[in-house]
């Protein structure tokens, strides 16, 4: 065993040969990137801020765009809730939709369908997925694994520039005759095939969005496997990286069937094919003249083959964010880290064999139903493992109740409610009663709204100093949290009662036209709508807090006393680089990893936390001389 010379780099000791190698590598990456981007000269404004190949800026682009879309999707929901709370009442806010959708401010039923379809589409495909994967994933994964950038920076840029046109096409569909898509975010045929022109735009937009996800997911997988820092074994990944890794596989494998299905539906609409149209279809008393022979159920299979893994695309990054914040906020390693990782991988596999639990009522037959309800029960196990581990991680922790921690803590029971209420829906017998009722809406909103979106807020409050060098205001963060927490439960909890009472979803008047639904709809809908308005008001402090600090940071006002690691975190995105990180290559010297991700309050250690890239403190601190053979042996183990 050869003895190697160590030198001091910044605050740490490194082997001299490795330090030189890392430095050379970092310089090569920077040079390559600059040359690749603009032929060796300084970057133009367009290359830097518009068509950037820097994963951090692309992450910020994704983040801003996705937050704006989330706001839009949320506003559509406010209009829907106004209508549901007080059906048929004229609201001046409705006039924004135009005379064709809301004459005199009274929302038309078909416009309600448009709002419903676009709320779902925007929230999922243009809001949460781009925020969870495009923004958080892009910004943090390379930093957390000690990589200078994504493996394919131009592919990364292409991913954003497929996402944005996809979103703009969806927006443009508000202005086509007949309005936007109105067949739900699921676009079930035959309704979607015979719908107005907006559906064609929806499909084209989806093709762009799916392409964007595919480009991104390939990039994440290669980056995580190939560009992780030396010493960063899979079991040393921060949990967030695992979550993104599995999510990328889900995106890569689940989205292509929907892309194919979207193209087939596009053909049905514009080229006269009948992939999804059955023979002898009669619409409004008139037989259609299409070729026929297609099968509407085919769409449902293709769609849910995507959309069930998609549910985990929505939730896994959220779990990753919450895990990071909980470990940091409790000052403890995650309890059951390994079982969480294996549960995540198992969840990823299982998510491909549960899709038909969305289709129990299509008459698939009891054998198939039995299969899918069994797999659905099985998939709940890894979710419970992850959630339980997060709960147990709190035990005995010295919890710091910061704003991100509040959101992360709220995620746990909220996702718990969302997950557990899903079990009855996964059982064919119970689903007969609950299918297509408000119970389903309550269930999946608990998963994605106070679940995923709260995790996204937690992530924004937590990593905002990383991207900007400024902390968001804590007081207004708490105001944002508490009002949001109360109001969001006020919206979604009554939905379980409505659903159990048999109130169908997608009714433009919330059920007032049905004798069995009228009473509970009248009792609960106005309250839920008031809570929705409360939730809107609660976002005002966040929006001001976010933009004030973002603009101030853009103008160069940094929080001087903040330091680069304000949360005293162990993971490399905080500990191994500045906040914000270096524009090129992220790190002054590419870090090397010596330990697991959450070494907080390690027994026997003097330091309160030991970053992943810090060499083992038990080693005799080298002073530039030769390292004792024992220490080398320890390290190589």
């Amino acid at each position, binding site marked *: 065993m050869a003895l190697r010379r160590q030198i001091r780099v910044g605050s740490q000791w490194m082997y001299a040969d490795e330090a030189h190698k890392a430095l050379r590598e970092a310089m090569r990456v920077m040079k390559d990137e600059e040359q690749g981007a603009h032929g060796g000269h300084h970057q133009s404004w367009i290359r830097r801020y518009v068509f950037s190949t820097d994963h951090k800026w692309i992450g910020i682009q994704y983040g801003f765009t996705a937050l704006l879309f989330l706001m839009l999707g949320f506003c559509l929901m406010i209009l829907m809730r106004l209508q549901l709370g007080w059906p048929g009442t004229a609201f001046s806010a409705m006039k924004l939709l135009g005379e064709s959708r809301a*004459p005199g401010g*009274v929302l038309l039923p078909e416009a309600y369908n448009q709002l419903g379809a676009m709320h779902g589409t925007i929230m999922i495909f243009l809001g949460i997925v781009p925020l969870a994967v495009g923004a958080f994933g892009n910004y943090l994964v390379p930093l957390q694994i000690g990589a200078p950038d994504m493996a394919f920076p131009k592919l990364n840029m292409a991913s954003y520039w497929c996402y944005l046109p996809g979103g703009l096409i969806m927006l443009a569909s508000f202005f086509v005759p007949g309005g936007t898509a109105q067949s739900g975010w699921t676009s079930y045929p035959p309704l979607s095939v015979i719908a107005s022109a907006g559906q064609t735009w929806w499909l084209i937009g989806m093709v762009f969005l799916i392409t964007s996800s595919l480009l991104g997911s390939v990039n994440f997988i290669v980056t995580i496997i190939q560009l992780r820092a030396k010493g960063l074994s899979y079991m040393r990944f921060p949990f967030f990286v695992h979550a993104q890794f599995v999510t990328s596989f889900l995106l890569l494998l689940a989205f292509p069937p929907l892309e194919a299905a979207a193209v087939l539906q596009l053909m049905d609409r514009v080229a006269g094919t009948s992939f999804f149209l059955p023979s002898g279809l009669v619409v*409004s*008393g008139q037989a259609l003249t299409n070729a026929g022979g297609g099968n509407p159920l085919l769409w449902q299979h293709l769609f849910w083959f995507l959309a069930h893994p998609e549910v985990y695309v929505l939730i896994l990054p959220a779990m990753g964010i919450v895990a990071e914040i909980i470990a940091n906020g409790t000052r403890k390693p995650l309890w059951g880290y390994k079982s969480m990782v294996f549960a995540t991988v198992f969840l990823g596999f299982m998510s491909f064999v549960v899709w038909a639990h969305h289709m129990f009522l299509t008459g698939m037959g009891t054998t198939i139903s039995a299969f899918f309800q069994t797999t659905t029960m099985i998939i709940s196990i890894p979710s419970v493992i992850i959630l339980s581990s997060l709960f147990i991680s709190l035990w005995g922790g010295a919890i710091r109740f910061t704003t991100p921690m509040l959101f992360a803590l709220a995620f746990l029971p909220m996702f718990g409610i969302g997950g557990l209420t899903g079990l009855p829906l996964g059982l064919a017998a119970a689903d007969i009663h609950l299918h297509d009722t408000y119970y389903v809406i309550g269930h999946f909103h608990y998963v994605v709204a106070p679940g995923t979106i709260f995790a996204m807020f937690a992530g924004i409050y937590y990593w905002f100093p990383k991207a900007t060098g400024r902390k968001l205001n804590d007081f207004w963060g708490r105001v944002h949290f508490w009002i949001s927490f109360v109001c969001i439960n006020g919206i979604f909890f009554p939905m379980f009662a409505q659903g159990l009472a048999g109130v169908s979803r997608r009714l433009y008047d919330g059920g007032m*036209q049905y004798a069995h639904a009228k009473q509970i709809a009248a009792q609960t809908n106005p309250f839920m709508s008031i809570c929705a308005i409360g939730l809107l008001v609660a976002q005002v402090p966040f929006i001001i807090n976010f933009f004030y600090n973002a603009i101030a940071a853009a103008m160069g006002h940094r929080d001087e006393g903040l330091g680069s690691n304000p949360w005293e975190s162990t993971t490399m995105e905080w500990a191994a680089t500045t906040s914000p990180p270096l524009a090129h290559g992220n790190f002054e010297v590419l870090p090397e990893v010596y330990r697991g991700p959450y070494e907080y309050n390690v027994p026997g250690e003097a330091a309160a936390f030991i970053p992943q890239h810090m060499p083992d403190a038990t080693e005799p601190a080298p002073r530039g001389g030769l390292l004792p053979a024992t220490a080398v042996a320890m390290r190589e183990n």
Partner: protein
Amino acid sequence: MTMKKFVSLLFASTLVFSIACGKGKEASKEDQGEDDQEAQTTTTAASTAAGTPTAAPTAAPVSADAATLTGLVKFEGAAPKMNNIQMSADPYCQSQHASAPATDEDVVVGAGGELANVFVYIKDIKGNFPAPSTPVVLDQKGCQYHPHVHAVMVGQPLQIKNDDATLHNVHAMPNVNSQFNEGQPVQGMVSTRKFDKAEITPFKVKCDVHGWMKSYMAVMPHPFYAVSETNGTFTIPNLPPGQYTVVAWHEKYGQQEQQVTVGAKESKALSFTFKG
């Protein structure tokens, strides 16, 4: 910049923005008001016109030689019994016919064997006939369409009214013009539509909420048409002298044609008979 400064700047800019937008809104409100007024006046005018479904629009300049075509549509044989409409699916609709249940309107035969709702029109008249601006009203009342059969001219406004306190949706199913399908959730709602192509064979207009609701309408390139009333009579006024083919169309019994020649200022009577 401190947070306070930022917030006050934000308020100031919001204020400026809202003032700017407020002005715009006022202006658009005025426009809206004018529109509403216009819509109202046309609605009233149209409701009077709707009372006399046989009255053809009279926007075209009337020649001094104009002839008048009148006629009677008879039904031969035993009139089929029209079924009562089951409206129990919508309690509101049922409540509107509490005294006597509404019946189907496929074949409406008078006491003397007169056949109503027959659409009579001149088939082969050439010329350019401007559409009147007076709208034709299609009323939804008691969960039935009034009138059951009618027509508009190309470009003439069609006002669709919901006089019921329940949701109706108007699903027009033309073959030449664009289809439309529009909901009217609130009582008193009016929407105006125009058709830009002639479609002289009547097409169906139905309500997808209430399956029994249907009516028929045609889009005419000229004003020479009428619908037979409950007493079987129809009148086509202001017809230029000439030789024409007159068509009588019934939703269930198909159509019949007759040749007719009318001289200047002549008034001619026709008779159609549909067999059951």
